[in-house]
């Protein structure tokens, strides 16, 4: 470390020492002969040639003196020297070289002392055999206005430009890459899709005739006795191993099954089984794509593949909505689950879409279903759906259960229960319903009012009237007034016949409008 510091010290000292060395003049001719330019200095070469000689080819031109030829003002001493040499070699005349400083003639001594000055003031730096490059930044400070101004911050900008260049290039590369990838991908998809569409269409056309033949020419028993080989013989050869053909065949069988009645349904299912298409269906359940799994589940549902029940069961709480809801729908259909256990154990809330599907299934088999287990479910949306089912299916026997549960139910359940009571026209005690009129839940209150409107009693009128006076909610007020109007138009007249409240006036006019009441 110390050695290093010492070295540093000495080298710094040495540097200083060099600076103090006295100025040693350099002959300008030496510099000029190296082919360098000294700022402000130029030369003219003149020569006397014999008469009649044409020296234009040497870039000379005749001067005002007879037989004397001169050059233009030249910057480089070497050029002039070269010209002098070639003239000498041809005509054996050497001629004169005249130096100029700023376009004025100058003697050799004057030139030398001008040059010494430049060197002493470090306006001209003598470098050994340096390659000339006047675009290099910061190299030379100008003398006079002959030199171009070169800003010193040029270097920085150069770097900035380079960054931009780098960005642009990387960005172009990225773009080209991305564009190529996208174009390739989309074209692959497009051709795949087109090929598939063409195939599907061809397969569909191939399916219909053998299917029609089987359905109309063969009886159920005859099909029963056929083997896989017998049926496959009717179908196009070699296609039974084609997965897409199997898919199309299943689709067509399902679509016919949906639209046909009677023994056609049995025939179709028999054909499906005989051709081992059920195995093809079950295979789909192990796919990674949700839509293929769902297709498999739907096929199991349509074709009543009862033995797949266990497999479908795995999907009833799947996080994909479509897998989940179709699995539940399938189980409702194919398993003899009369207590709707699948539904009751749903973890996810039921959406309206699912309710629609499940309701359609349950509707056809309502006689051997028991919805009461749904009301025990821990999932509120399932309980609400259970109550809806009671109403949609008109399950009067469940009315008792609803009456029992009403007081402890949540608001959404209560709303559905009130609709049930309303439909059946019965509720155990109106007292609990009156209690709900104080709720903040507007749909609950209006539903309660609608029930009172249908099965209300004398005392209801006062309660409703009070409610209509206290509330600020338009919907509640309107429902209450409507209920009073329906329960007893005379009392309605007593209450609102002379009202000056604008809202009440409007509502009573609405209630009495014959056109609106027809609708």
């Amino acid at each position, binding site marked *: 470390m110390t050695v290093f510091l010492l070295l540093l010290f000495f080298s710094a000292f040495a540097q200083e020492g060099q600076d103090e060395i006295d100025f040693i003049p350099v002959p300008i001719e030496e510099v000029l002969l190296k082919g360098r330019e000294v700022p402000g200095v130029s030369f003219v070469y003149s020569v006397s040639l014999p008469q009649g000689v044409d020296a234009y080819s040497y870039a000379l031109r005749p001067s005002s003196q007879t037989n004397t030829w001169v050059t233009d003002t030249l910057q480089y001493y070497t050029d002039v020297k070269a010209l002098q040499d070639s003239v000498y070699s041809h005509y054996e005349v050497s001629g004169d070289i005249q130096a100029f400083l700023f376009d004025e003639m100058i003697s050799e001594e004057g030139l030398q002392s001008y040059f010494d000055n430049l060197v002493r003031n470090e306006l001209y730096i003598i470098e050994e055999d340096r390659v000339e490059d006047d675009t290099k930044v910061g190299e030379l400070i100008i003398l006079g206005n002959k030199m171009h101004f070169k800003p010193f911050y040029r270097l920085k900008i150069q770097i900035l430009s380079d960054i931009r260049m780098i960005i642009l290039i990387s960005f172009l590369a990225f773009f080209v890459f991305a564009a190529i990838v996208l174009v390739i991908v989309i074209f692959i998809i497009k051709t795949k899709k087109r090929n598939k569409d063409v195939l599907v269409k061809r397969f*569909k056309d191939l*399916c*219909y*005739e053998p*299917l*029609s033949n089987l*359905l*109309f020419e063969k009886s159920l028993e005859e099909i029963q006795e056929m083997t896989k080989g017998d049926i496959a013989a009717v179908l196009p050869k070699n296609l039974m191993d084609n997965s897409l053909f199997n898919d199309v065949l299943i689709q*067509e069988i399902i*679509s*016919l099954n*949906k*639209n*046909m*009645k*009677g023994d*056609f*349904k049995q025939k179709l299912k028999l054909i499906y089984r005989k051709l081992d298409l059920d195995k093809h269906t079950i295979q789909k359940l192990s796919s990674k794509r949700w839509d293929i799994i769902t297709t498999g589940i739907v096929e199991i549902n349509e074709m009543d593949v009862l033995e797949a029940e266990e497999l479908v069961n795995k999907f009833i709480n799947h996080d994909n909505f479509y897998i989940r809801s179709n699995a539940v729908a399938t189980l409702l259909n194919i398993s003899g689950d009369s207590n709707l256990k699948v539904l009751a154990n749903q973890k996810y809330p039921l959406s309206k879409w699912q309710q629609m599907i499940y309701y359609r299934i349950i509707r056809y088999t309502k006689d051997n279903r028991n919805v009461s287990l749904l009301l025990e479910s821990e999932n509120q949306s399932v309980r609400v759906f259970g109550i809806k089912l009671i109403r949609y299916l008109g399950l009067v026997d469940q009315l008792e259960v609803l009456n029992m549960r009403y007081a402890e139910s949540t608001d959404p359940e209560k709303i559905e229960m009130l609709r049930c009571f309303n439909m059946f026209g019965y509720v155990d005690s109106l007292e609990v319903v009156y209690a709900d009129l104080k709720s903040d839940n507007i749909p609950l209150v209006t539903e309660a009012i609608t029930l009172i409107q249908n099965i209300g009693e004398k005392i209801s009128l006062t309660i409703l009237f009070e409610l209509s006076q206290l509330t600020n909610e338009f919907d509640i007020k309107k429902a209450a007034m409507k209920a009073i109007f329906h329960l007893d138009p005379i009392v309605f007249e007593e209450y609102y016949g002379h009202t000056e409240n604008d809202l009440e006036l409007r509502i009573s006019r609405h209630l009495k409008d014959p056109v609106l009441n027809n609708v």
Partner: protein
Amino acid sequence: MKNVLIIEDDKLISSLVRFRLNKDGYNVTTVDDGIKGMNAIDTTNPDLIITDVMIPFKNGIEIINYSKKVNPNVPIIVLSSLGEEESTVMEAFTLGASDFVPKPFNPNELAIRVQRLINN
């Protein structure tokens, strides 16, 4: 030979019905949308029309209307899917549909209905 026109967008069903009716010796034309259906009424002079209620571009009701204008004596059988509104079915009958077959249906039964209507 009697002409039967089937207007139904499910090609498999129409082909199947055509197959069944061919067996009974009818000349069957099938089209898959309402506009083609109307053209076919003009060009094939059907002796009976079977139309679905829900078909592209037109509905069964309009087909009935049109057919009655062209030739009021042609019997029309209306096919209808589940979930169809009752009002549509009622409307079909008021406009003069001869018969109504709800899906799912039995093609043999449909063939009997066709035979009965054409022979009347």
